């Protein structure tokens, strides 16, 4: 009887295997990435002081999106206009200490991708930040060498593919090139 029910055995086996596939789950991986401070300083380095306010708002002040614990006792407040104001804004550690226990590496969720996209768009389209980016590398015209330099600002020691180089060289302005580079998540990978 059982021998006749080949499908029974197959389905039961499949079911049991899946049911018992508890998985070892003893090894978890979360690829090391730049944390909220690293991302902030990296982009400030690329886009200059004019980018600081925007980057502070979207990265430095949102450690739970980008990862990395902060230090609540690093904050020093002095009085300004009747309120406590941080001496150094870059030391802000929000959420009453909870952010001091964040993991260093956080999966980038959809909101993080969105924020990165729109921040990069603003940085790429803003004249001042774009100019800073280009001037720091002494590049102005779009050509093979300059797009490679732009690429290597985000991906040091790597050479872009011919396909990408060609696409970049076909752009009319630097904005989409710089925005596109900025939007890729992997420059954050360690």
């Amino acid at each position, binding site marked *: 009887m059982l021998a006749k029910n080949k499908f029974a055995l197959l389905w039961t086996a499949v079911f*049991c295997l899946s049911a018992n596939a508890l998985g070892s789950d003893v*090894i978890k*991986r979360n690829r090391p990435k730049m944390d909220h401070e*690293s991302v902030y300083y990296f982009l400030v380095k690329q886009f200059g002081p004019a980018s600081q306010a925007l980057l502070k708002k979207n990265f430095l002040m949102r450690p739970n999106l980008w990862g990395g614990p902060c230090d609540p006792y690093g904050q020093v407040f002095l009085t300004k206009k009747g309120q*406590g104001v941080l001496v150094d804004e870059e030391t802000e550690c929000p959420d*009453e*200490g909870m952010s*001091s226990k964040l993991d260093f590496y956080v999966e980038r969720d959809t909101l993080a991708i969105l924020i990165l996209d729109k921040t990069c768009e603003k940085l790429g389209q803003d004249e001042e930040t774009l100019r800073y980016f280009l001037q720091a590398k002494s590049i102005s015209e779009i050509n093979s060498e300059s797009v490679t330099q732009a690429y290597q600002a985000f991906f*040091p*020691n790597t050479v872009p593919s011919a396909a990408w180089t060609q696409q970049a060289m076909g752009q009319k302005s630097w904005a989409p090139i710089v925005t596109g580079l900025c939007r890729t998540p992997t420059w954050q990978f360690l």
Partner: protein
Amino acid sequence: MNESSCVAFGVLLIVSFLGFAQTPSSQAPATRPDWSALFLAPPSQLSFDPSPQKYLTGVELFRRCYVMIIRRPLPDENQLLSRVKNGTLTGEEACVRLVGNATFNAEGILEHPDLDKVELARLLATFNRLHSSWFEAYNLSFSGENFGTAEFSDFQQMGYGLTRAFFGQRDVTSTLQGHEIFAPLRDPINRNQYLLARNPFTGNHLPWDRIGFFYDDGTRIQGRIPQAPRGTLRGFAVEKESFQLKKYFIQYEKFHENTDSNLRRHFGGGTLGSSTYLLLTMGDKVGTILDGQVRLPRRWAKSVFKDVMCRNLPVLDEADGHKYLQPESPNVFSKNESCMQCHATMDQIVGVIRDVQGGVNNGKGLDFDRTKNIQKDSKIGFSYLRSVHDSKKLQPADHPYAFAPQIGRLRMRDFNGQELDEPVASLDELGQKIAATDDFYMCQARRYFKFLTGIDVETDPIVLKSSALTQQDKLMVGQVHEWAMQLKKDQKAEKMVESMLRSPFFRHQNFDPIQPTSLAQPVAAAPAH
């Protein structure tokens, strides 16, 4: 419909469940178990990807460790980078120097020959934050039940000992010993003027000059009580374990008392007995006197296992719970096997801090006038700890448990499945016994490895032995175990981290150098760099 098929399915199901459930790692241990054999495989069997292009170049490797640890872009003028570029250092060596060449000077300030002041602060900050994040509890406002405690007790305290040992080339065991309190040395010198706590209505931080501390007769305590330092972390100094405050207030159920108290009291055992750690984890209402039954600092017990050994309760096996049943006990949990699996551990280990009692100054919490939505009063409370033996009012006969000798028991099955059930008469002794287990080192190895590679390898043996492990899993556990045993032997966490930095795991592009298909084949060494 073929009913016999249904019956057959059911029978097959039961049989197959029973069959598949019996993976080797879940079999009940033998009389004298060695669990580690169930989930460890020698890392020498690991085979790594031989392709050199899958590993980072020297410059790339140094950039990785620099950004990971300093958390800033690597400047072109960095000296170590220059040496890597000109070939006088490999990337690995540069990473090892980045971490290994930092030392504390005589004043306790961290120094490094190859880093500037900003980089140095970042190096210290990264490892300090890493160490602090290993201790889950942080909220002194909750456990202290007031806004002031976090201003005097630094809730990052538990990480300081580890950081100091790390860069100071001290034994990791030293973090579980002694009465030293490490005060962080921070910039700037300017005194911070606001609390961490905020006005719940406005969201603004509360100002120091509008709050005060009072004796219970209403007179104000003169002078400033030392705050936890604020500013950029530069190093550590051993704090004088004393801030005597006269006539400080403690309230408990039946009466209150003014007592002379040391606000910086340390109960021994390094991290285990620091007042901050105890305050965070005592778990009961401030002022509670422990009774050995319902009122016990079980949260502290759970935290010790989790924070220091990466073990979640229960740390005893099923059968052990049965052994410790107490049918005559008035407590419901004492008669239940599954409850006792945890309680047999928790309720025993806490005996070593049975005399600890939380106190709070009489400053009540900030009052807010709801009719006006403004802060009405300026008294603030903060909590501290004392021993019940400091009391002049408490009678030992009324609190036999709290006044009994401070003896507890460390009761657990360690990483190897060996049952420990040993008396401990002090927190220092508890620290010694914890430091004698493999678990303590497995936990450290696991955490550093996770920080450096993003790979979190489970080290809780109870989880491991009830999981279906692949051979690769066992090899990874074995690798972490190897590092842990190295640490146990030489006691220097920095050395272990250096080993990890040199390992193929760190050097690989994707932190994933293992070749799963060649596990049975002779070892292929990862390309040297």
